[in-house]
Every structure is written in structure tokens, then in C-alpha cells.
């Protein structure tokens, strides 16, 4: 049990710190250092463009995708070095948001299943932020039940022809590439007839339509495929083995989302410190304290749980289903914290002008955004199932469609 750096880790930290000190985009310090739960904005600047600039700079100096092998644009760093880097990068790490899906989920899948030539060609620009990738899994009738997907891929000579529709695809509107899971054999039970590919999002026949979200923003999309042709060489894993390939993606997803999930606690604590209520500072109020303490220990529990998994990773263990806990806890917390912070503001709590000093518009935008944290990347219910089944060893849910050929499963609605 030890928080101290080993001499090697200390040297790594010093090197990282010096480089960040000399190279970070200091012009955004004011905006990035503000608590920003949810989406970040840079005044008068395009966040995607600025994120790419910072990522490219990091990549050139060997600080991108630290744990990836060097030949793929990484550094071959240990899990702990990765944490040290994140600690040192601090709020500049917020500029990594747009790369999360590509680097956190698509990259590892490509690394595990891509051809050697493609890995050498596509992974370094993914690491350096030159290319953005998206994850095309969910469909209108296949969200939690992602194996129920209907997008078809049919073999024609050396190519595959894809037809169908994906939905909720984050970043598809600015992505260069994507990984897509398709049904290649509807006569097989649903988990067996799936196959994974990667593709160029500019391929003819791909149409991306942004969706306006409940919070008014547009981060995710519908994606339509009409006779999209891709060569067999873009297949990831064996034909019919797409489900197993997707599990690699999802396991990495849980790890990379879970570890960086906002809880809203530091923002709430700072807010309660400053806010004056009728009887004095909010933080002196008994009810406020009790709520704060409850959330403080959850936030801290998540932090040290992730340290424990990092310690396990550095012993060579793989990220396991227990990492579902991060998003499960943080998602609800974020929503509850937003509601509480607004409640403290009384009638003004409904106002959304984030720049007004008398209110705290950030919680209102967290309120509107936080429902998605409990859905994206697996709903609370699915994450609880995972913990119950894969960590505690309880029986799986009864699956009436499990052994039935996919095309014989009764359908309803869309």
C-alpha cells in the first residue's frame, strides 16, 4: 500500500511535467481550469481543431496513447505511468474528449484484430489525433440488446456490401473512420451470425444525420448505409465472430469511460463553499454537509477503486467486469448532484445563464446532460446485470431468443 513514486516513476513524472509546462496550450488555461462537467467550450475557437492540435503535439513528442506500443504511435508505458501522465496533464486532458471512443475503444479492437499492415497504417494517425474514429454498434432495435442488430453485410466476391442503419453514433459527423458490427448470417442464433469491420466514413453510401439531443446539443447521429462496399481485408476477426470482437471493445469501453467519469463532486463542493444561504454559507448547513459527505465518500471510493484496478493491471491482469462500477456510480451521482445544487438556488435554480455570477448555470447543463451518462456505454440496469452475473456469479437473465435462428425471432414495432 503505497502512493509514492518509485524512482523510475518519479523520473517519468518529472519529464512529463517539464514537457507539459513547456508545451501546453496555455491560452486555454482559464477556460479549461474551470470546473466543466459535460461539454467544454472554448470561446471563439473550435474545440475539435484545438484538441487535434494538442494531440498532434503530444504525439510528436511521444506523449500520445501512452500505453500503446511505440510502433502504433504510443509509448509502451505502464498503466501507472499513464495515471501519472493524466495527473500531470490535469485539465489539459479535457481536450482529449473527442478522441475517447477512437483511442479508448476502436484502437484496442483494431490492435487485437486488424491486419499488420492496417495497424501500422491506421493506428498512428488515430493516436496523434489526425483521424477521429467512431463506434457504430447501436441500432434502433438494438441498444442494450446490441446482438439484436439488423444491419446486413453480404459477401460479393472479395467485398462486403452493407445495408442498414445505426443510431446514437457519437461523433460520426466528424469521424474519419469507424468500426461497425453487422449481421452476416441471419439463419444463425443472434450472437453467432455477426461480423465486425472497420470502414472509411467517407465511403459512398454512408449518410450521417445529426440528432438533436434532449439538452439541445448534437453530439450523436443516425448513420445510414446504402450498398456501402468494403473489402474483406477490412474485416476484424472471423466471419461470424463479431460478438466476441465487440466484447473486446466493450470491456475497453468500461475501463476507459469508468476511469475518467465526472462525478460532479468537486464542482458541488466548491459551489457550496461559495454559496450564501439565508443563514450563512451553504457549507455550514447541516443538511448540505450530510449530502456533501455522502457524495464525497462515493467520489473517493471511485478514485481508490480505480487505483486498485490500476495496481491489478500493472501486475498484468486484464481489465475485468468490476470496472462497470465507475460509470454506474458516477452517472447517478452526477444527476443527483445537479438537482441538489439547483435546489440550493431556490427559484433561481431554473435559470441557465452560466455566465451570471449569482447562479451556477453549469449544474443546469449537467442536469440536462446527465441522463445520457446513465444510458451511453451500457445502462445502469445492464451494468448491474454485468456485476451480478460476471462478478458475483449469479445466473444470467432468461433469454428466450438465445438459441433461435435470428430470422425466426418474432419482431414487433420497428
Amino acid at each position: 500500500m503505497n502512493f509514492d513514486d518509485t524512482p523510475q516513476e518519479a523520473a517519468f513524472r518529472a519529464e512529463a511535467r517539464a514537457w507539459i509546462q513547456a508545451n501546453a496550450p496555455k491560452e486555454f488555461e482559464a477556460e479549461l481550469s474551470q470546473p466543466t462537467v459535460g461539454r467544454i467550450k472554448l470561446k471563439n475557437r473550435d474545440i475539435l481543431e484545438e484538441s487535434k492540435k494538442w494531440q498532434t503535439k503530444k504525439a510528436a513528442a511521444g506523449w500520445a496513447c501512452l500505453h500503446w506500443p511505440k510502433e502504433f504511435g504510443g509509448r509502451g508505458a505502464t498503466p501507472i505511468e499513464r495515471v501519472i501522465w493524466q495527473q500531470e496533464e490535469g485539465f489539459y486532458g479535457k481536450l482529449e474528449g473527442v478522441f475517447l471512443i477512437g483511442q479508448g475503444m476502436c484502437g484496442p479492437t483494431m490492435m487485437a484484430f486488424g491486419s499488420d499492415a492496417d495497424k501500422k497504417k491506421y493506428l498512428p494517425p488515430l493516436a496523434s489525433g489526425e483521424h477521429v474514429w467512431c463506434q457504430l454498434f447501436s441500432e434502433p432495435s438494438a441498444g442494450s440488446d446490441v446482438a439484436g442488430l439488423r444491419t446486413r453485410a453480404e459477401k460479393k466476391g472479395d467485398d462486403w456490401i452493407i445495408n442498414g442503419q445505426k443510431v446514437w453514433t457519437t461523433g460520426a459527423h466528424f469521424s474519419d473512420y469507424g468500426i461497425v458490427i453487422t449481421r452476416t448470417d441471419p439463419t444463425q442464433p443472434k450472437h453467432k451470425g455477426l461480423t465486425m469491420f472497420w470502414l472509411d466514413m467517407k465511403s459512398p453510401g454512408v449518410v450521417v444525420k445529426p440528432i438533436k439531443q434532449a439538452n439541445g446539443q448534437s453530439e450523436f447521429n443516425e448513420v445510414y448505409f446504402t450498398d456501402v462496399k468494403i473489402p474483406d481485408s477490412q474485416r476484424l476477426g472471423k466471419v461470424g465472430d463479431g460478438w466476441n470482437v465487440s466484447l473486446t471493445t466493450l470491456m475497453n469501453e468500461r475501463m476507459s469511460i469508468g476511469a475518467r467519469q465526472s462525478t460532479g463532486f468537486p464542482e458541488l463542493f466548491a459551489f457550496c463553499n461559495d454559496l450564501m444561504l439565508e443563514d450563512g454559507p451553504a457549507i455550514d448547513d447541516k443538511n448540505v454537509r450530510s449530502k456533501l459527505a455522502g457524495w464525497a465518500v462515493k467520489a473517493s471510493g471511485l478514485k481508490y477503486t480505480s487505483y486498485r484496478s490500476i495496481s491489478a493491471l500493472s501486475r498484468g491482469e486484464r481489465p475485468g467486469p468490476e470496472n462497470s462500477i465507475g460509470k454506474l456510480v458516477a452517472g447517478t451521482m452526477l444527476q443527483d448532484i445537479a438537482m441538489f445544487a439547483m435546489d440550493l438556488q431556490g427559484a433561481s435554480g431554473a435559470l441557465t445563464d452560466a455566465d451570471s455570477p449569482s447562479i451556477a448555470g453549469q449544474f443546469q447543463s449537467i442536469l440536462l446532460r446527465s441522463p445520457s451518462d446513465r444510458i451511453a456505454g451500457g445502462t445502469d440496469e445492464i451494468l448491474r446485470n454485468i456485476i451480478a452475473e460476471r462478478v458475483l456469479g449469479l445466473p444470467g437473465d432468461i433469454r428466450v431468443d438465445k438459441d433461435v435462428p435470428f430470422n425466426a425471432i418474432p419482431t414487433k414495432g420497428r
Partner: protein
Amino acid sequence: MNFEFSEDQKQLRDQARRYLTEQSPPKAVRAVLEGNAPYDKALWKGLAEMGFLGVAIPEEFGGAGAGHLELCVIAEEIGRALAPVPFSSTIYLAAEAIMLAGSDAQKAKWLPKIASGEAIGTLALFEGVGNPSHKAIKVSASQGAVSGTKTPVADGAIANFAIVAARTGSTGREADIGLFIVDLTGDGVTRKPLANLDQAHGQAEITFDRAKAEPLGNTAEGWNILTRVLDRAAVLMAFEQVGGADRALEMGRDYALDRVAFGRPIGSFQAVKHILADMYVSATLARSNCYYGAWALSTDAGELPEAAATARISATQAFQHCSKNNIQVHGGMGFTWEFDCHLYYRRANVLALSLGSLTYWENQLIDRMRFRNAS
């Protein structure tokens, strides 16, 4: 960074678990709960022989001199087994107070006796309803003696000696409170056992009438020492609570796999699975906070006050959460005297109050976080 117990510490845990599973089965816990004995003497002696009582006591004072991480490991197992012995009073409170503030002579007198199981100690702090507060202390000390009434005192009826918090001045400040060692078998001590939720943590009222008292540390520093003792005990107690939470979760899981209803094991119903998943979540968050506390305790880090409150709150919540839902998962069986669920439920709710209530620790945590943010 390395955030886990070492192989040696894990071996110690396995050893302690094996020993306690055998020597502290539910049957033994019940014997004490049902009032057949004030505590399990044979187990207490056995724990001493295994070296568990003195695990963190230095070798020169008869202990194993292993350290506090090792003590955390043992504490967790004590909690898992609901061991009906005065472990927390003697080890987390009395021994810690003496190690922290005692003179060499006091250490030489008490620590070997604690390590060998010969002396049971406790902390006499509370004086009726309320939480630790220097203002609440009326028991007074003068001319080497204490007078007044302490209630409740955990293990107060069986302890040989107590660390007593007593008033030495009347300025209204913390410096008015001193700590004293009082031999409970001496003159001027009257004890009355009190009925309580969990007889395995017996409570008593102790009245001192000019009972001989020896200062522990600088008497003007009493409240300060006490706060540090409570913080240290909070981490250790949190491990005990996490041990209990973990066992309650395990019992619930096993029962859910075993019990069949509607033609299926109840563990295949999602509502039941989700109860158990949430129990796992609270136990895991608490365990991680406990590791943080263990690190702070074993290194005497500046973060200890905050880490202790954090571990204490989340372990209290986790044990209460897991033990109440363990009963729920067991259905009617869970509400019988015969099943062990209530033993955990009782213990969870007694431990939740033993070092000051949840509200008290919540307040402590926020004060400490504020202090850190300000400095």
C-alpha cells in the same frame, strides 16, 4: 504506486480467516448474544496466542511489531466473523491511545498485557446522548482521581482498565480535557451492564467516585490525543465493517443461488440480482476507501483525518446497506432468530454508533475537507 496488500499480508489474512471461521462460528457468537457469557474467553486467548492481539504492538512491548496494515487485515477478519471479543475497545482504542501518548512505563505496564490477552481495555468517553464533544464531558479529574458517570462504555463491564476523558479545567476550551488511565478493578468504580442491540459488544455505565487515575500524556492535550485515537480507530473499525459487509453480501449471494421460487433460483430474478449488485458496489467503494485509510494510518500521513472520516462513513453505510439487504434477499428466513442475518444487522448498527454517529463523521469530514481546501 501500489494500492493493494502485499503477499505476506494476504497470507496473514488467509490465516486469520481460517482461524476465525473455525473458532468464531455463528454458534459462538450466539452464545454471547444470548447472554450465556460476557465474551468468548477461549477465542480471546486464542487470538492472543495467534499473535493477532499484538500484531501492531512493538516487539519490545510484547507484540509482533508487524504494523498497522497487518492490523487492518486482522480487523477485517474480526468483522467478517463477528468475533464476540472486546477487540475494538482493547486494540483500536486503549492500545492505540497508550501507543500514541503513553509514557514508557505505561507502555511497559499495559501493552504486554494487552498483547497476551491478559488485559481488556476500553475508552470511557460518552456521557449519555450525543457525539464526541469536549463540551459534553462532565466527569472531572483532580488530584489523581476521577469522579462522575460515563455511559455507554463499550465492553465496560469486562474491561480491566479504561482510558477516561475527564475535565481538568473550566475555560470551556479543548485544553480542559485530559485523558487518564483508570484501573477498573480498583476502588471507587461501580459498573452497571446495559442491555443493548448486540451483547457481543456489551455496554455498561461506569460511575467513578474518586477513582485513582493516572494521566495519559499531557493533560492539556487530552482532546487532541483523543481525536487522533478516534481517527485511528475509525480506520480500523472501518475494516471491521467492511469485513462484515462482505460477509453479508456473500451470504445473500449464496442464498440467492440456492433458494428456488417460481421454478428458478431467486438469484436469476433481476430485482434480486440488482439488490446484490448494489451491495457489491457499496462494499467495494468502502473497501477502496479503507485502503486509502490504511495507507494513511500506516504512514501517519497528513491526510489521516480526512481518510479516516472517509473510510468510516463509507464503511458504516456499506455495512448497514449490505446487512439490511441480506435480510431482504433471505425473505422470511432472514427474519428468523435461527438464521444469522440478524447477527450482521445488529452488529452493523452497533458499529455505526460506536465511535460517534454517521452525522458526527459527516461533519468531521466536511470540516477536514474545508481545511484542506483552505490551506
